[in-house]
């Protein structure tokens, strides 16, 4: 069956991202070039971008990156509403997976890369529980990245698969580049290692420069 591994990147667009949003957009450009030019990976993966601040919006619908020529870039806006992001992510995954299945695809568990630089201003736990509900079949594997004023315990809780926090060893702009590069590697390696009818495991680099992985047992 045609196999699809969907990737969602969920990015913080709050005011505090002001100085670094350009670096993140550059990273997404490079990701597009790298994934879109590898036909094995492009055939098997799909990519979606969600931005959030006061509210959340889909900036790039779930797409085959080799067909994409432009997307809505990330822009800085208001506050930090995790709940809106998680709700939109769940709704988007729900409809995307249903559509892919109608198209006759075998859909592997989605991967969501979550990036934030600050503390949420609103309650988010209810929406997070819905997103990660074990009884909801397409719940994503979440890889969480935090930097800036982020709270380690929060990022660790959100990253159901892996979590990383910036360790200030490199500039925030460079760290965001590394985030995009880790995401690119994850897509390429996961897409390349998928085999017909075989197992598929989400591949995430063990080390991301500028970030430290949060081990579950350290919290």
């Amino acid at each position: 069956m045609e196999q699809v591994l969907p990737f969602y990147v969920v990015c913080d667009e709050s005011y505090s991202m002001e100085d670094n949003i350009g670096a993140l957009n550059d990273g997404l450009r490079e990701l597009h070039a790298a994934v879109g030019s590898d036909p094995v990976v492009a055939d098997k993966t799909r990519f979606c971008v969600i931005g959030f601040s006061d509210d959340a919006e889909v900036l790039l619908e779930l797409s085959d990156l080799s067909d994409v020529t432009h997307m809505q870039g990330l822009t800085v806006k208001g506050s930090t509403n995790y709940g809106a992001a998680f709700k939109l992510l769940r709704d988007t995954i729900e409809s995307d997976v249903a559509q892919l299945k109608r198209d006759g695809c075998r859909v592997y568990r989605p991967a969501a890369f979550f990036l934030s630089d600050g503390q949420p201003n609103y309650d988010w736990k209810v929406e997070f529980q819905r997103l990660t509900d074990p009884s909801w079949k397409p719940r994503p594997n979440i890889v969480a990245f935090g930097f800036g004023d982020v709270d380690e315990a929060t990022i660790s809780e959100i990253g159901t698969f892996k979590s990383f926090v910036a360790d200030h060893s490199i500039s925030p702009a460079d760290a965001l580049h590394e985030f995009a590069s880790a995401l690119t590697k994850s897509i390429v390696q996961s897409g390349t290692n998928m085999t017909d009818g075989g197992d598929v495991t989400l591949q995430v680099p063990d080390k991301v420069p500028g970030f430290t992985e949060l081990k579950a047992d350290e919290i």
Partner: protein
Amino acid sequence: MTDNRMQLAPPVPARLWGDREPPWVPDTVGRRAKTAEAPWKPDPDPDFPDTVFDGGRIGDLRVMACAARGAKHRFEGAARQDAAMAVSAAGWALAAVADGVGSVPGSHFAAGGAVRAALGGLSRDIEVRGAGAFERGPALFKYLCGELEQFEGPKTTLTVGAVASAPDAEGNYGWWVARVGDSPAYVLSGGRLVALFDTEREDEFGTATAALPTLDLKAAYRERRGRLRPGEALVLVSDGIGDLLTTDLARAANHEGPIADDAIEYFALKWQREPDPVDFLRHTQTRRRTFDDDRSAAVFWTAPAPVPQPPTLRPGAALRSARRAFQDIELSAARFGDLEIRSAVSKGAAGRHERRSRLCLLSSGERLVVIAAAALDPTAPAPVDRWTRRLRETTEWLVESQALDWTAVVWSRALQSLAEETEFDPRNLATAILSIEPGPSGADYSLSVSEGLAVTLAGAGLSNDIAEHRQPESVYPDAQHGTEFHFYADRLAPDQTLLLTNGVDPAAIAKSEPRPGPLQALGLLQKPVGGDRLIATVWSEG
């Protein structure tokens, strides 16, 4: 939505590679697969060329078997891990398909070895016991486990099938199929494919398939028997094709309806009757998005011959797991830097012997090397195998050498190394060695060639036999045997194609299609009669 349109790098232009037009380009069944349209990288091991094929008849049967790299291995330059072969033994046609387990390195050795050992072992048993050999299926597979231990780790699935070439009292043809692993088998009857084995892959996320060698053969071994009516076919495939078929079977069972096109209908229609060999290869490479695994298939067609014809399927009794077999057709193609290369060799229609001419494509470092050898007089003995093996060894040994006359050095050294062996007689050999390196201002080549193989330079509407057109740089005499070879060195211009041929008319090819796709290159060799044929064609796309 906030308007902040971000321009992205333009997508890589969809420049289709290889076969682009009917009747050569493989069909797409379902959604477009970009991987299948991407350029191929050279095969890493010349003993495992991109595509192999066997075909022939015995009694009322016609049989074809082929294995080809999938789109992913082609794109990545990885070795083909599937193997397939067809042979005959006594009054039976035999075929096997194997799918090396990808997670273990070297699995192509296991797949190739399993097919040879299975068909060799079964052929020898059939010659002694006739149909009684099929009572000993588990023993055959136990023997295979032992044979495959020599590869120390690699594993493979294997399906072996045999069909009687003459009808029984009721006019039907007995068959036997045994397997370990998930490769499906079907009877094709009245336009329908009927699966012989249940799908054992239960959950969506899959489990490791059973594979040889195994310690628990009893649990992994499956066997089926039956009879084909005239006009029916027995189909063995690896999961590269099986996954296409089971997907659509599952959708039908769940009443989900077919997706745009249906692979089951496609194969049931295309393989209802024996296709042309090139079409058979094209069908096995049917494209669908994400179905990029290696492909192999073996099909037996039953149809009483109006006039009994002599068998053409070669006997399998001499096959051994550790000895390389030379199948009826081998095909390789690649982009190498700016260079495009196609190489294809095909056994002549006459005789049940193994193909005698050799064509070997190697890439090492900056250099692409083609070694071609055939018998000048195909009816007389020629040490083709020994000579090409020695040339290959010498090539690998001298790979670092920067000598300007590199191919002549390889040839001379190989000859020297055989000088003491008095029984080695190269007088009936036709040989060519071509080495070519892509560069910024064209491709430099070094070519050594003896009488019997044609080298043609085609371009700008002209085609010239190199021997008639220009003086060689030097002539190397072999005083010991009274032979010689000519050495040429030059740069291939961007509008030029270099053709190395045997058994086909190079002028006709140079005029019509000197720059073919892979299947089209093979198509250039298709002739119903005559001896072995080969073609290697190289040009620069810089």
